[in-house]
């Protein structure tokens, strides 16, 4: 069944894309931080999982229990002591965006430098849950399946939290118009910090899970940053469902092109799809129409 053999692996690959993009949806879409050090944080989490696994034999899934709170705390501190000041300083969203690009570019180097000192430049890889499982006749790796599962669960949970809870509604209000949110009594700084920290926690989830099946080194962060940005933008900024759908779509298209057309064109297909979506819907699949 070629169709199943395209759709299922495509979903699994797409699940990984969605997973690495979820954190950025919150950090960029809600907290308005265009975080260029995103990929480095992700790789740092992967290194964390690797160290715990190779040093203490701790499974990456258990490592999540450590990695996520630590990442949230670090990201909260980063927001509280660095980014919040910039948010207050920027006159408008454009100025805030430029400042956050610049400052996180610096943070990128700090994280990357720390990883280089600790781990050097070479590649790392380990095996966990690298077990085949046959689903509808298509062989998949359990670790990649776990990543898809997490993407769906975490994505769904975040989506529900944003749409069904009071805090979520307040957070969405900030995403739409921070000034207006302030006027109706929402503590923008505190909630943005919270959203940024949560985003950081999701980055850690992504990093820990992809470390189970991707080979990584300290210099690879930018690959993840860009993939996450493409997914987030394609889905519509700040829209969790959008990120999920865009990630899965990219996965299926890449797999389909690899099987049906030419594996050499997979990345070209990704970017064609991405650019095509933006040309037809300039604010992404699920983005609000620009006024």
């Amino acid at each position, binding site marked *: 069944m070629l169709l199943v053999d395209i759709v299922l692996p495509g979903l699994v*690959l797409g699940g990984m894309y969605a997973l690495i993009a979820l954190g950025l949806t919150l950090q960029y879409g809600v907290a308005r931080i265009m975080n260029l050090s995103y990929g480095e944080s992700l790789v740092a989490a992967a290194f964390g999982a690797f160290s715990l696994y190779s040093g203490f034999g701790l499974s990456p899934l258990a490592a999540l229990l450590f990695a996520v709170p630590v990442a949230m705390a670090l990201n909260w501190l980063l927001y509280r002591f660095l980014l919040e000041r910039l948010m207050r300083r920027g006159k408008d969203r454009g100025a805030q965006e430029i400042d956050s690009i610049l400052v996180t570019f610096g943070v990128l180097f700090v994280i990357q430098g720390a990883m280089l000192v600790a781990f050097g430049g070479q590649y790392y890889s380990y095996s966990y849950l690298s077990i085949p499982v046959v689903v509808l006749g298509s062989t998949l790796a359990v670790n990649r399946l776990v990543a898809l599962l997490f993407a769906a669960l975490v994505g769904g949970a975040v989506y529900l939290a944003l749409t069904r809870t009071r805090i979520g509604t307040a957070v969405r209000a900030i995403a739409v118009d921070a000034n207006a949110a302030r006027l109706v009594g929402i503590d923008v700084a505190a909630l943005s910090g919270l959203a940024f920290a949560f985003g950081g926690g999701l980055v850690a989830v992504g990093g820990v899970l992809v470390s189970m099946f991707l080979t990584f080194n300290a210099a690879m962060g930018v690959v993840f940053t860009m993939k996450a940005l493409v997914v987030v933008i394609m889905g519509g900024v700040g829209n969790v469902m959008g990120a999920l759908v865009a990630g899965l779509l990219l996965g299926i298209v890449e797999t389909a092109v*690899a099987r049906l057309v030419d594996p050499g064109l997979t990345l070209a297909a990704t970017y064609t799809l991405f650019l095509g979506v933006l040309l037809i819907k300039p604010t992404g699949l699920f983005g609000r129409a620009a006024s």
Partner: protein
Amino acid sequence: MYSANRRTLLRITGLVAFATALGAFASTADAQEKIRIGYAISKTGPYAGGAGITTLPNYELWVKDVNATGGIKLGDKKLPIEVVEYDDRSSSEEAVKAIERLANQDKVDFILSPWSTGLNLAVGPTLNRLGYPHLAVTSVTDKAPELAKRWSNATFWLGTSAQISEALADLLGKLKSDGKIGANVAMVSIADQFGIELSAAGREALKKHGFTLTYDKTYPMGAQDLQPLLKDAIASNPDAFIAFSYPPDTIALTEQAQLLKFNPKIFYVGVGTAFPLYKGKFAANSDGVMGIGGWNADSPQLKDYLARHKAATGKEPDRWASSITYASLQVLQQAIEKVGKVDRAAVAAEIRSGTFDTIIGKVKLKDGLLQEVWSVGQWQNGEFYALAPTSLPGARAPVVPKAQWQ
């Protein structure tokens, strides 16, 4: 008028800052009590992964080894090595600039090469103009003979792409005529100069040996999932699977092959197969896997090198370019000692013409190229033994078919 003046002022301010900063790192030339050796290597950026395994540890190990014996012998006294080290950030422009800096500012006596074909070619003209010997170890290109002709100071050590592919095809051809494998080969390659040259040469050589390419595709750098590719390759039912891939993909292909229970008689992947990481990750499953490189692991010099490398850097070397990198440095040292002074032109000429004793045995370059290079290796009982070219002494017999994945 006001604005024009302000612009001038800005320029002056900028230039003053520029000049001050430059003055801050002028170096002092010292009397010849040390041999200053400089290099710029990719500590950051996409090349950091390769440089961090193959090149940098060997530079560090060599300096340590040489200094432990008192240094390089010039005339009748030994001069210790002093290192000047930069990060080229995986950028051609930075690499060129760093060479200029090592030569003009730090006035180093010798310069070691960067990692990767691209960076070695980028710094080639500059090293040539400045007259430094250029040991372009980690560059694999079919243009190597032509480049060696163009740049008399440069030497190439890993063979050409054609050499690697032809050695592989010869080995497979022999296995076929021995009746150990059939005629079907699936080949995938990365869409980079390395993959394209190797696959182009491989295509021709395999055809010459009567093989049929049942699958032959490239994939882009940075592809995150190679399973689709592999599934089509499996569907073509090959006797041998060949992948000219980069380390992360090499790992991913091996992992996916295990998941898909893909057990061809020959499983050849790499770059990266020769890395200790590969053995570390796949343990017993690495047995029987073939890849680029290999070494004569029974040689006492290499055994000793392996132990020293482990002690000095905390990890094992890769089994392809690491030992050759180290050997090239031994060649450099012996050439300097033979010439007896820091005469770069003479040293470069000596490297090309002399015969040297190294950890990989006797080395004698021909036309600036190391002619005999291990091209195909295979993991056998936890060691990556060299298989081909079979004409080289110490070539092991291949284990075919590869054992099933466990």
